[in-house]
């Protein structure tokens, strides 16, 4: 047994427990600052992850848990995301009347679930990790107990999340029934005879439904706008970055490590899902006035872009997804940090809330602008290079299967549409008549730092993509592609 492999997860869980305990002895006024401490420790764990060598795949718990370059890539990703989300939560603390420490702890528990998901090599661990993420998110989404939209978001997420979990566990049962194993290595190895069995395929389809729900791909996207809109901003950010990335890594593992033969037959299905997701997300985002809801639809569209890389079925495709997620991390976190700070006074998170932001706080305005520009995919920001890699991966396949060209067409239409609403936000920031309050927005030092880090990340990845591209290619080699 090689349980020491899970040291990163163990550290995160311990941190969560320590925070819960500290809450008992700390005066209420100081609890808020626990978030900074937690973020710092997560940062230390992130730094510690560079001591781990994962060039060879190592297994623990009877091959249920794998530690390879892909797992490590995503663990670092989740740790970074959680750091920024924790800093954001401190900013949000005054809007949560009770129990901010529990909020921090739940974020950490969700983080550990995501990190387990990154290492899942068995359907059982997939399910456990997903439940750990989803159940903590039920609470996180409805954490503002006195706010009706927050409760509504929680209930919606609970009902649809439970439904998708049910689909998933049913699917896993069917797969186990047909293949007599839930382990990815065994599934990929010895069972070519069952590939055509309807029960087995139905089971996998149901698993995909569960994962489609996680990443908010069409037609399982229906929850995303409402939940994004209603949840507290840090929760939404973590949902948009962490939960989505967890869904993506599981999708990659299931499709390319567990059942590559089946995936090869499902290319067209995935292409349709990807294309429709892109168009749906972008078209629905056009009329939105609520900033969080707009980002909800935009996150659906981005799930579609990432699925482009899945449909490519190649190292180029999956490494493009990893790069894209890397850029997406900084971009979305910057956007939500700004929303979290700015929307303090504005009820309803309307776009007009950022009007004249440039006069109130140039840093926030610049961060939000860069985030929008990066999401739209404009150079020299990270989003542009990510889209470039994804398109390249798909075009590469176009020579084999012409249907890819339709997919490219859909993606391009989506990109053009997205310009409209992303630049609409930029326009509001710089050029629309400002709202009544023209006061300068105070920024705490950690938020400032977090914003600078996000801006630097977006620009660095856009201008010097070499490092991340190489890391992404290395990580994708862990898949059976």
């Amino acid at each position, binding site marked *: 047994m090689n349980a020491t492999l899970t040291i990163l997860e163990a550290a995160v869980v311990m941190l969560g427990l320590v925070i819960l305990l500290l809450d008992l002895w700390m005066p209420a006024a100081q609890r808020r600052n626990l978030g900074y401490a937690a973020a710092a420790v997560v940062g230390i764990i992130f730094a510690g992850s560079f001591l781990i060598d994962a060039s060879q795949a190592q297994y623990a718990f009877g091959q249920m848990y794998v530690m390879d370059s892909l797992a490590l890539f995503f663990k670092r990703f989740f740790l970074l995301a959680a750091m920024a989300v924790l800093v954001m939560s401190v900013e949000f603390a005054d809007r949560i009347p009770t129990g901010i420490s529990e909020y921090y702890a739940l974020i950490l528990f969700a983080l550990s679930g995501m990190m387990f998901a990154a290492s899942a090599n068995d359907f059982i661990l997939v399910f456990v990790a997903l439940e750990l993420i989803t159940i903590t998110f039920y609470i996180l989404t409805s954490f503002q107990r006195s706010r009706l939209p927050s409760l509504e978001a929680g209930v919606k997420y609970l009902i649809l999340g439970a439904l998708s979990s049910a689909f998933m566990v049913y699917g896993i049962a069917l797969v186990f029934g047909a293949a007599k194993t839930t382990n990815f290595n065994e599934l990929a190895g010895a069972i070519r005879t069952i590939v055509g069995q309807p029960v087995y395929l139905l089971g996998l389809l149901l698993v995909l439904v569960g994962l489609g729900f996680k990443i908010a791909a069409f037609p399982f996207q229906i929850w995303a706008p409402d939940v994004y809109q209603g949840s507290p901003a840090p929760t939404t950010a973590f949902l948009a970055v962490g939960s989505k990335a967890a869904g993506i890594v599981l999708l990659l593992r299931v499709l390319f490590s567990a059942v590559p033969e089946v995936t090869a037959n499902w290319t067209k299905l995935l292409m349709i899902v990807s294309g429709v997701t892109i168009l749906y997300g972008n078209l629905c985002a056009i009329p939105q006035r609520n900033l969080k809801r707009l980002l909800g639809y935009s996150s659906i569209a981005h799930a579609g872009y990432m699925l482009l890389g899945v449909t490519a079925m190649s190292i180029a495709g999956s490494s493009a997804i990893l790069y894209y997620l890397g850029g997406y991390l900084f971009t979305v976190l910057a956007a939500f940090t700004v929303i979290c700070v700015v929307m303090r006074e504005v009820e309803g998170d309307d776009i007009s809330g950022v009007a004249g932001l440039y006069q109130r706080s140039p840093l926030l305005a610049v961060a939000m602008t860069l985030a929008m520009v990066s999401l739209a995919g404009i*150079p020299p920001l990270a989003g542009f290079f990510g889209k*470039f890699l994804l398109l*390249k991966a798909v075009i590469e396949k176009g*020579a084999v299967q012409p249907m890819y060209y339709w997919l490219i067409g859909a993606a391009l239409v989506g990109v053009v549409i997205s310009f409209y609403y992303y630049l609409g936000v930029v326009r509001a920031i710089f050029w629309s008549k400002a709202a009544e309050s023209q006061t300068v927005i105070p920024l705490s030092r950690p938020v400032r730092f977090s914003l600078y880090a996000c801006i630097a990340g977006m620009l660095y990845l856009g201008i010097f993509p*070499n490092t991340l591209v*190489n890391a992404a290619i290395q990580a994708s080699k862990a898949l059976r592609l």
Partner: protein
Amino acid sequence: MSTLTYILGWPLLAGILVVFIPQNYRFAIRLIALAATGVSMLLALKLFAQFQTGVAGYQFVQKAAWVEALGISYHVGVDGLNIGLIVMGAIVAFAAACVSWEITERQKEFYVLLLVMTGGILGAFASLDLFFFFFFHELALIPTFIMIGVWGKGEEKNYATFQITLYLTVGALIALVGLIALYLQAGANTFDIAELTQRLTANPLSVNHQYFIFPLLLFGFGILVSLWPFHSWAPLGYGVAPTATAMLHAGVLKKFGLYGLIRVALPLLPEGAQGWLHVIAYLCLGNILYCGLVAMRQKDLNLLIGNSSVAHMGFIFLGLVSLNLIGLTGAVVVMVAHGLLAALTFGLSGYLRQQMNTLDMEQMSGLLRRFPFAGAALIMAMMAGCGLPGFANFVGEVMVFFAAWNDFPLVTILAVWGAAIIGGVYMFRAIRKVLHGPFPEWVGAHAVDASGFWRRLPFALLLAVLLLLGFVPRLLTDKIKPSAENIVRLATRTGGSQLEAVKTVQDR
């Protein structure tokens, strides 16, 4: 480091610098913009002087790996095809910075965007790597949209912004797909144009792939150059754009599509190009005749200039389809000449709009009485626009007509008609209507002619270069010739018989 890196780097650096200057320091901001574009221009002129004429290869090359896994490198260099464009771009950028005194609101943001746009434009023409070629173009394109959307003038501003953004984004993305497809099909794992050229000369792509990729590049780039019938964004967009933006986009950035076709599509996809030449030949008539006729009916001076600028793109396309040395050289000369001309006319019309508060030709007359300098410059620009000898445009257009005669006699006859008659009609009518006659009484005393060194400098500079190249076209053509020969050789290589034909043409 190559001089080219400095030429495109100074504006970008200055753009970043301006971001950190407080808004109130307007004079400092303007000074930095002028200095950066000025230095860029001087360096470009130095480059032009040091350029070794008669050598076919790339000069002033700098190459640094950027993303090794994908074969992307920062690679800049000049040869005969882009040296003229870079010098022209740098001059226009300086002129555009000069005329930007008309911007009174949010100057800081305007100059940041202007400098980024300048750096992007110069980078796009200097890049010898397909990725950076596209990257820099996008870097220049987005500021264009924002500048039109924010500082644009006139009631149709929002519609025009929407239209130009939509058209140009679609065009750029189609071209991007074409470029990626080209990269992947070449299978050399490099975006480097020089390496791709070598590779594809040795192992050309299959004809099917070429037929498929070429139209992507043709229509993608074509939309960017306002190839008929994808031109409708251009007149309106330029009509509402702030002066500097119109000068830079109509003058320089628009040539990116043509440059891309000549630099990438023709030599790398010869058979695809030959299959599509006839289509382009007839589409370019759409530019020359249709847009010329539309220009005749315009009541707004800016729309007239915009339509005439679209019409001029037709001549460049015509030079391109002739696919011989004279034609390609002519096309490049027209690109440079039209860049200067478009910048000059849009600069002048912007100045007049600033003074008169309108460009409605019904309301204007006798401008020469109040604006002797600007009016005279406008007359010269319009004469250059209808191809008067002595201006660089004449040189390029004549070369294009000579070259196209062999393969497309009918198209050439119609194109000459479009240049000489239609162009003459709308230009002369505009001159009579706007510049001659009595000066209208409703104009207050605030409308004054361009006076003083800085107000006159941009126009004088552009006119001077236009005249210089008109009288001494060898300055350009000698530099273009070896590179154009190279492109023609690559673009016409297919079967043996055609190769022979080319040889005889070249021997002649």
